[in-house]
């Protein structure tokens, strides 16, 4: 890990970004993601995945305790921004609560989360 940058503490959500080797970037989100802060998550994620020399983005949601549909929309927007540049966006970890929401929306495969709960794909 080369850099660790606190991206900021917004209302009920905290964002941290870490740069790993080979252009992989990890975004760690904690707190509750809802319509009051989904925009910040979206902006931070898009900034991370579209930055120069980034090959893929891993999003760690293990400390997220609530994710509503606007939060989900933010994650999908980040994924789409990555897909536009052929960069993968994966959810590397998620709390059971968040995993359920992603699961119900049929998004597990899109984010490389398999339905049994273990993480698939490269981290």
């Amino acid at each position, binding site marked *: 890990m080369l850099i660790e940058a606190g991206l900021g503490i917004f209302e009920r959500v905290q964002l941290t970004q870490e740069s790993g080797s080979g252009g992989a970037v990890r975004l760690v989100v904690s707190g509750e993601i809802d319509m009051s802060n989904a925009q910040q998550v979206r902006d931070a994620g898009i900034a991370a995945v579209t930055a120069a020399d980034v090959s893929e983005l891993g999003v760690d949601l293990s400390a997220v305790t609530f994710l509503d*549909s606007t939060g989900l*929309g933010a994650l999908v927007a980040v*994924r789409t921004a990555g897909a536009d540049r052929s960069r993968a966006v994966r959810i590397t970890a998620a709390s059971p609560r968040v995993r359920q929401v992603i699961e*119900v929306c049929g998004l597990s495969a899109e984010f490389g989360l398999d339905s049994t709960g273990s993480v698939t794909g490269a981290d």
Partner: protein
Amino acid sequence: MDTSVRVGDLLRLSAVEATGLLDTPAEEPFDRLARLASLLLDAPYAFVTVVDATRSYWKSCVGIDATDPADRQNPVEESFCQYVIATEEPLIIGDAAADPRTAGNPSIESMGVAAWAGYPLRSTSGQVLGTFCVVDTEVRQWTERDAAVLETLAAAASGEVALRTAVATATTATAAARAGQERLTFLGAVSDLLAGKSNAEEAVGALAHQVVPYLADWAVVTVLDDVTHERRDLGRGHRDPTMLAALDDYIALHQPAENSPIPTAIRTGEPVIIETVDDALIRRSLPHPEARAALAELDPGSVAVFPLRGRDHPFGAIALYNAAPRGRHTAEELRVGQEMARRAGALLENVRLHDQQRRLAETLQRSLLSSPPALGGLDVAVRYLPAAGNRVGGDWYDVYEEPDGSTVLVIGDVVGHDLQAIAVMGQLRTMTRTIGYDRMASPAELLGRVDDAIRGLAVRSLCTAVVVRLRAADRTDEGIPFTWSCAGHPPPLLVRDDGTAVALDAAPELLLGVRPDTRRTDHNAVLPPGATLLLTTDGLFERRHLAFEDALDRLRRTLAGLAEHPIEDLCDKLIADIGVRAGEDDIALIAVRPV
């Protein structure tokens, strides 16, 4: 000697003003010093003077029996103090009539001044405020000791002045600080008050209460109607709650003339300040005698009307009235009133715009969510509940019949809580209906086509949905077979008449708006006689502090107890039991039961 420049010096005059000594009665600390000078120098008169631009005011005057401030002064050009002020030096005159510096001074004649000796009375900043002086009616030779005594006593008097000034300054500063604090607190409270309101009428009503009694005895807030542009008095407040009935009477009757203060302020966008409400104004402003009588009950003394304006035109005004005993508004009240109206205007405009947007959204949503058609062989009930507060939602339902007699049930949830979400919801609903009706597609095909069509929408949107297709005519002893498909939405629930409730089970499939080429699956199930099929959005059961599965379980348990209720009743009880408690999200609901 021309003394006028130094006498009229603005810094000196402001230092004089700051002493707070002008026109104040005699006080022992100064009198004691003056008496001492008179005694020690054996002079009939001794003075402590403060000199403003026009006169020498005698704070102390030993030898002159005058208590009225008007008698304790002389014009500056007749005073000897003017010379001390001009030179900023002591002045010792043994023979006033003969000395070229003072010869010709009118006081030589009028007061019998023969000899004069004075030292400057100084402020802490060094300004000469006046003098500490003694006067003799005989020509005399002042000694060095006389001068030394005078100098010492003048310094003591200056110290006394400094003390007074410090106290006066501190008092003024404290009062100013307190007024400033009150002002800030008040303006902050106005902002908080209005920012917390999501409804214009509520906000205006609250504003009128907030301004009394701080800015006025009573207040009326008038706002132009959005549509008719008629003036409406939406808020009022009175410092005395027992006077509210009288105020309401006045408001009901007043019908002010166009050239009266409130309409004028709204029309011109400028404040209207009436220091004294007199009969002429009242006759001109209130054409109706009943209105004038009602106003008289309120004993008006003065009124200040400030326009409320947003980015462009004034849309209302707040009128601040003082009853006669309180008198006209102070400069501070007018300043704060203007600032309050400026802030309130901006905030109220936001509330008004928000209101308009919300009404538009509600109208749009209602127009889109029509009642279901009467369907042969099926009982259908639908519900839509907006989220609490001002938030709009993107939930929708639709029930329609296809040409082959099939009934299609659609429930969906567009991500977002704004007008855009509603607009997208409207487009999706139309799209779904059109595609479905045209192609009579299976639920999975229908969802796939809608997903395709979303690409064509101007906005990138996400949407979850469930589509159910069933035909009452296909009914068997087992019940009515149906096909369903789900795009990232909570699954349909089946409530059997024995009280068991299950969520239809299938592997979740992707929500709409992510990947149009997603393969979608049709699932088959049967709706048994007496059972209820329930489609809902997550607003019904999802709670921030309850896991999805737990929430779904809770919904299932509640439904089990409602299995035998008539279908409309079931919907009402379901919402009453678990739906609206949180109100975080909007709720859409479709329930279907074979007849």
